């Protein structure tokens, strides 16, 4: 019985796999991930340019005689020694004795086109500097200005002691953070890979319904086998996609492309992390895919599938956010919930693989997730039979009552 189920699933899988792989749309599936990368890179470039243009704050100085120039020179010598961002200083006016400067008016005016937009103005003297600016800016720069003014007002060049460096590879705190970063990177990659497939799985049964072949399939093979076959076909398609992307990345690396920033070695080691990553990708895909296949099975047209795709994407995001949120709360019930809840479990467990070297929980988790894949496929197929094929008992009647009623009336 089980053998014939798998044989039927294999027939469906083979048909679907070949239909996708040998179709023109597969090319779009392959180049699909390049679009977000390309758009992301463009957005980052534009964003950084805009940020550079807009958020390059300059502090204007209006002080008596050469005090302003001293302040600019002091800023120049101290800035390399200070961590954090130190804004540019520019002299607006060298005030004569008794001359005043209205910093508020200057800051309120739009300034001259092409000239830097002032974020704050320093007036007064080096001994008593006055910083005029918005509340956030004043709070942010008050300390810096005092330090630079003190440097500028000091007689003669000041010397600073040389700090002898004693660098260690890592600290416990840094290691924890690095592993968390690796865990998060794994989760993000898993999320991106599963997200690419959601739309394809969602519309998977529309073809059969549109071509009216669904009835022949329903009469020939169990609905569970149909669902299983379709799901594994898409998994196989995605694995082909991953293999292609991986090969392209490998070739680019060989051709001299810079590698992505290196992540900390996961607690289970890279080889095991990759194996677990593959298994959790398969499980995450099968869990979400079976869910989406069941939801998409209810749709009869492409339009309905499009309507469904938005809530489905939101659902995926929620699962991802839940797993990410749990990552930052180790040892809490939230983390436990994310490990146990079937659809978030692969994400949470991959994060575990990055942070903990213990392997047996992964075996338990994989079995747990596989059980849920089976349950969702079973329920989805039943739901499909009942709602789409209009099978099953009339509303309000339980299965065992139905079975009793359907007993042979001999």
């Amino acid at each position, binding site marked *: 019985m089980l053998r014939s189920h798998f044989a039927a699933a294999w027939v469906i899988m083979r048909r679907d796999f070949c239909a996708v792989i040998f179709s023109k749309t597969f090319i779009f599936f392959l180049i699909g991930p390049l679009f977000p990368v390309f758009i992301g890179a463009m957005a980052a470039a534009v964003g950084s340019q805009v940020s550079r243009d807009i958020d390059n704050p300059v502090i204007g100085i209006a002080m008596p005689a050469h005090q302003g120039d001293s302040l600019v020179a002091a800023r120049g010598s101290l800035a390399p020694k200070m961590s954090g961002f130190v804004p540019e200083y520019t002299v607006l006016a060298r005030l004569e004795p008794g001359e005043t400067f209205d910093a508020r008016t200057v800051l309120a005016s739009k300034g001259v086109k092409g000239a830097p937009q002032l974020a704050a103005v320093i007036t007064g003297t080096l001994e008593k500097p006055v910083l005029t600016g918005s509340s956030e800016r004043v709070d942010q720069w008050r300390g810096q200005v005092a330090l630079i003014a003190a440097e500028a007002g000091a007689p003669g060049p000041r010397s600073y002691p040389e700090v002898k460096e004693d660098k260690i590879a890592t600290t416990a705190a840094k290691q924890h953070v690095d592993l968390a970063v690796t865990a998060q990177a794994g989760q993000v990659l898993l999320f991106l890979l599963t997200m690419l497939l959601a739309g394809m799985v969602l519309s998977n049964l529309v073809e059969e319904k549109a071509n009216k072949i669904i009835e022949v*399939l329903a009469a020939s093979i169990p609905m569970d086998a149909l669902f299983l076959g379709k799901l594994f076909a898409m998994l196989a398609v995605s694995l082909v996609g991953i293999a292609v992307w991986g090969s392209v990345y490998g070739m680019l690396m060989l051709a001299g492309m810079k590698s992505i920033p290196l992540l900390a070695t996961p607690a289970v080691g890279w080889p095991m992390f990759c194996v677990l990553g593959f298994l959790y990708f398969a499980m995450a895909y099968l869990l979400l895919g079976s869910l989406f296949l069941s939801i998409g099975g209810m749709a009869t047209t492409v339009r309905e599938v499009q309507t469904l795709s938005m809530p489905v994407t939101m659902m995926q995001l929620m699962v991802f956010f839940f797993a990410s949120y749990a990552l930052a709360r180790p040892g809490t019930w939230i983390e436990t919930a994310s490990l146990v809840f079937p659809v978030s479990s692969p994400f949470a467990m991959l994060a575990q693989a990055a942070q903990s070297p213990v392997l047996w929980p992964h075996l338990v988790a994989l079995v747990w997730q596989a059980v849920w894949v089976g349950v969702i496929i079973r329920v989805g197929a039943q739901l499909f039979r009942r709602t789409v094929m*209009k099978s099953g008992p009339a*509303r309000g009647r339980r299965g065992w009552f139905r079975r009793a009623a359907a007993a*042979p*009336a001999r």
Partner: protein
Amino acid sequence: MKIEPFASFTGTPVLDNVPSADLAIEARGLVKRFDGFTAVDGVDISVPRGAIYGILGPNGAGKTTTLRMLLGIIDPDSGYRCVLGHERPTEVARRIGYLPEERGLYPAMKAVEAIAFLAALRGVPLKEGRRRGRELLEQHGLGYAADRQIRQLSKGMAQQVQLLGTLVHEPDLVVFDEPFSGLDALNQGKLERMIRSLAERGTTVIFSTHVIAHAERLCDQIAIIAGGKVPFAGPVDAARDRLRPQVRLETRAQEGPWRAAIPADARHEGRFWFFTLPESGVEPLLRALIEGDAGILSLSIERPGLHDAFVSIAGEAAARALEESAQEEAEKAIQKKGRR
């Protein structure tokens, strides 16, 4: 004078006396409701192995729902079904061929691949399915189209490909839902011949139709279905025998003692008399006519057609609906021809 033969009047409408082992399909009290509407209401059907069995009824009578329940595509709300000795039809799916009313294949598949795919669904290895597919296509004059995609074939050819895909795994039971729908006269004839040849090879064929002529020409047994109920199921002859034969009598004499032998409500047109054969049978009637000096010029006894039987069994309204269904079908065919 000629006397035409007629069958016995004592047909058994339901095959209660046929052992279950000899039945390809046995269904008792099948009920199916959709959102409060009872589509099938206590259907009993017994299909002997190797028979050609027709389910005759107008559109919306419950034919497709009954077939779907027999195939296990949908489960009945109540009732019992046994197909090829199994109470779960899906367990014997590999021994069944099914051609649904709404036909369809994957458009990008080649004809031979489509047949091989349908064969694979029924457990035939892909390679063997391809081999059989090519063979069947050759046999039916479609060998040249074996490597063409379904989308490149005409609708009629695609339908033939699906039909071959239904039979490729050599099933014991073939279920056709409105198989003649959408076919031109030539292809209807081909399909009729195919159904007969299947039955000759021992395959059980069950099909639904709203065209009486198909059922009358092809079927050994029928189930008349109307409003979700089956008022008659059994041999076609038994359905006809539900009505008494009609007598057409031509006499030289207009009056005489022989008049007492024919029913009082007999219709009279010139020298002809039309009436229902009395229950006593033809011999006493004949004797009374001769002894009463009727001067018989001709006497024929006409057996009622399946249409008359349908009217008698299912009622006038169902018969009208049946005619409307057939007319709709004909109009669709004309429209289709017009579009071409």
